[in-house]
């Protein structure tokens, strides 16, 4: 090895670009009266998401977890009446490393009071269009994308047909166990790469992939999760929700996540019961979205690997 491991992997130009991008984001929200807030990065509670692992630290001799997103803190502030707000800072995810992933990364998350997912999706398009300097934008439903590319309706296709399609389109070492696993495989291997240039906004996800979004019937009477994702050049950039405000449903989903994690022998972290309490006290109707800032920078500066936009990725951190 001739490389000097003390050196940053990002060029000075990339670091300057990052600084400009952060300033542009803050200006975007300042112009719209959205308040920047800071919430804990270190917490006794962790996400219950079945597919996200938290980094565990010790604080006062007891386990504490590095935030996988600022969501819980921001929602508690919303319930406390702070109004439209955003956080621009670090998030941590155990085990996520690769060309587009670093376990420590920069996340922008914001909430709009009184908005639904469709309205927030437009604002995401506007921000991304500005940061990426493009006007090429299209929005379509999850169903439309599957119909266009694979000629199947992801909500109504039979289990057998869906599994056959995943097996045909992707060389697999295993048999997919669930519909969602098939859909995730098709999305990440087949549909994302085919999205092409420009910004793609995708909405109305299967109800089984609701996470913390509301589930509502669409115009065809199918129950869909009022969630959206933003992509550019085939790379996933943002995930948005028309947020759940019902404390009982929230508690039910936490328990469902815990059962899933326990059944799949994954670590079960203490969930944020104070979010449930905040929802009981009354969180306003709102929409929220999280956006990966490092990936936006990769696209804005035409960098192919996340290491090129982070001064010290995990191997050098």
């Amino acid at each position: 090895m001739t490389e000097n491991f003390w050196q940053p992997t990002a060029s000075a130009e990339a670091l300057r670009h990052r600084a400009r991008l952060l300033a542009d984001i803050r200006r975007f929200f300042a112009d719209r009266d959205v308040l920047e807030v800071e919430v804990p990065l270190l917490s006794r509670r962790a996400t219950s998401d079945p597919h996200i692992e938290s980094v565990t630290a010790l604080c006062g001799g007891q386990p504490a977890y590095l935030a996988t997103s600022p969501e819980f803190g921001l929602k508690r502030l919303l319930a406390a009446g702070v109004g439209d707000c955003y956080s621009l800072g670090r998030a941590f995810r155990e085990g996520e490393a690769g060309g587009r992933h670093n376990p420590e990364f920069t996340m922008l998350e914001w909430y709009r009071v009184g908005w639904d997912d469709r309205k927030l999706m437009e604002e995401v398009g506007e921000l991304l269009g500005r940061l990426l300097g493009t006007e090429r934008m299209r929005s379509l439903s999850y169903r439309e994308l599957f119909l266009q590319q694979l000629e199947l309706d992801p909500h109504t296709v039979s289990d057998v047909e869906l599994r056959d399609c995943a097996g045909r389109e992707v060389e697999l070492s295993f048999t997919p166990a669930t519909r969602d696993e098939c859909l995730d495989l098709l999305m990440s291997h087949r549909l994302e790469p085919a999205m092409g240039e420009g910004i793609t906004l995708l909405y109305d996800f299967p109800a089984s992939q609701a996470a913390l979004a509301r589930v509502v019937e669409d115009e065809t009477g199918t129950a869909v999760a009022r969630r959206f994702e933003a992509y550019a050049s085939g790379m996933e950039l943002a995930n948005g929700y028309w947020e759940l405000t019902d404390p009982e449903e929230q508690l039910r989903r936490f328990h469902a996540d815990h059962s899933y994690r326990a059944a799949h022998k994954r670590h079960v972290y203490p969930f944020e019961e104070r979010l449930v309490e905040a929802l009981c006290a009354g969180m306003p109707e709102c929409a929220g979205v999280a956006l990966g800032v490092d990936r936006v920078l990769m696209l804005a500066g035409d960098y192919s690997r996340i290491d090129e936009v982070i001064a010290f990725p995990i191997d050098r951190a």
Partner: protein
Amino acid sequence: MASYSTNEFKGGLKVMLDGDPCSIVENEFVKPGKGQAFNRVKLRNLKTGRVWERTFRSGESLEAADVMDRDMEYLYNDGEFYHFMEPETFEQHQASADAVGDASKWLKEQDMCTVTLYNGAPLAVTPPNHVILEITDTDPGLRGDTAQGGTKPATLVTGAVVKVPLFLEIGETIKVDTRTGEYLGRAKED
């Protein structure tokens, strides 16, 4: 035998897939923001040379392949097998024409090359990056044409055919890059 989990997969790691030894070429971590994580892996089948693409669930593992690279001296070809020797132990190995493959056209007796052993038997042979070989056949040289860029085919002692400058003659020895088959220059005779 040990096994490796997807998060240990990296270029050059030797694993078993569908009963064949493979070398990992590329490992891409794929994860939708809300959804399950996968590893999209490219592997070279060391028996056939073909590159396979395969997607694993993150956390799955593969058995390690008993594959190792050894530097050996090429001894001779008996008409059926190619014979190699480990210089320190003098242990000899015979490799089939299948295992030697395209490397055969660069093999000169006493040259060192890399022999890949699978379960102790030769699976593949990699010639040295640069070899020095004698020209055994080519069109007559053109005197005074050393500056011009023209080339002509020349057959080497091992049977390989490479493009060489017009001025070279039968009996001269040249240096060739075996990875590209390119002529690098005249060899200096010591």
